[in-house]
């Protein structure tokens, strides 16, 4: 726990160590695996924010697509990392990404069918108006 706090604070207020700007410049000019992971994490967080805060159920579905895409980006980035560190034919991540896309397509079809059925019965697409199971 102590380590976690120290590390996050160090991230925000890192004292100007010699060579730090050099390291940042290196990171910007030559983005590596960690940059892809950070981008994917941010996409994931934006998606979770959409799921938690929006009222429109269709936008919530779009946010779920964002979350799945963040996971796909991680898979592809790690595939490239594995290809560059060891086996040139490592494509397991890409194969898995295809399955994620298939499941996302099925989920979108079912979810939008549900939205249509819901709209037909309740005349609303706002999640806080859909409170049939709430007492």
């Amino acid at each position: 726990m102590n380590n976690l706090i120290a590390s996050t604070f160090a991230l925000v207020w890192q004292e100007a160590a010699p060579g730090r700007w050099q390291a940042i410049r290196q990171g910007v000019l030559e983005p590596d695996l960690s940059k892809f992971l950070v981008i994917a994490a941010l996409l994931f967080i934006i998606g979770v924010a959409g799921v938690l805060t929006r009222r429109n159920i269709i936008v919530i579905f779009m946010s779920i697509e964002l979350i799945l895409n963040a996971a796909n980006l991680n898979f592809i980035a790690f595939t490239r990392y594995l290809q560059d560190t060891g086996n040139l034919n490592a494509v397991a991540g890409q194969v898995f990404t295809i399955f994620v896309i298939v499941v996302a397509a099925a989920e979108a079809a079912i979810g939008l069918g549900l939205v249509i059925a819901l709209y037909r019965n309740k005349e609303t697409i706002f999640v806080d108006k859909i409170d049939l199971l709430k007492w």
Partner: protein
Amino acid sequence: MTLTGWEAAFFWVFAIAALVAALLTILAHNAVHSALFLISTLVAVAALFVLLGAEFIAGVQILVYVGGVMVLFLFVIMLVNVGAEERGGEMLFNRPAQVATSAVFLVLLSLGFIYAIRQGYEGLLIRDNLSMQGQRAEAANRRRTRQQNLRPAATGTSRISEDTQLVGASLYRFAALPFEIASVLLLVAIVGSVMLARTARQEAATDDLETAEGE
């Protein structure tokens, strides 16, 4: 694994485009605008896939997501009523307390992610530097020579990627059963969405029941 030169420049362009479009997706008032911004995000992520050498997945992403799923989304948006949000009569977000709670949760989540990525990536680098310092340079070299040995395209300015071949071969060699399960899943999804989206009259006709209106 590092991207250099123009690849690095395009990485930043597409990464920032994806993040900005994703933010606008969840902030847009109009659901159609949300869908268009989501399409921008998906295309930017597909460009990142191309940068990572996954050309086939990038194509699948654009064909399936942008060509299929997003068209479905736009259809549904136009079937249901989204006028209320546009006129400003309806709230865009949940109640302030809920939004504040999720903001706190998300800040904690992002700090946890950054911590995990820093620690995990350092550990990964240490492991790979210890165990395969020589192998890494060799693998990068092999990758480069393989790319130079690819067949040139008809225009002569680029080379034909072998990514599709590799993915297809390992899909059928190592993932044949999941592939079949995925096709069954798609079939179930098709039947299920047709079942869910039919009207009361269609439901009564197929189930041989009387509707409430006595039709």
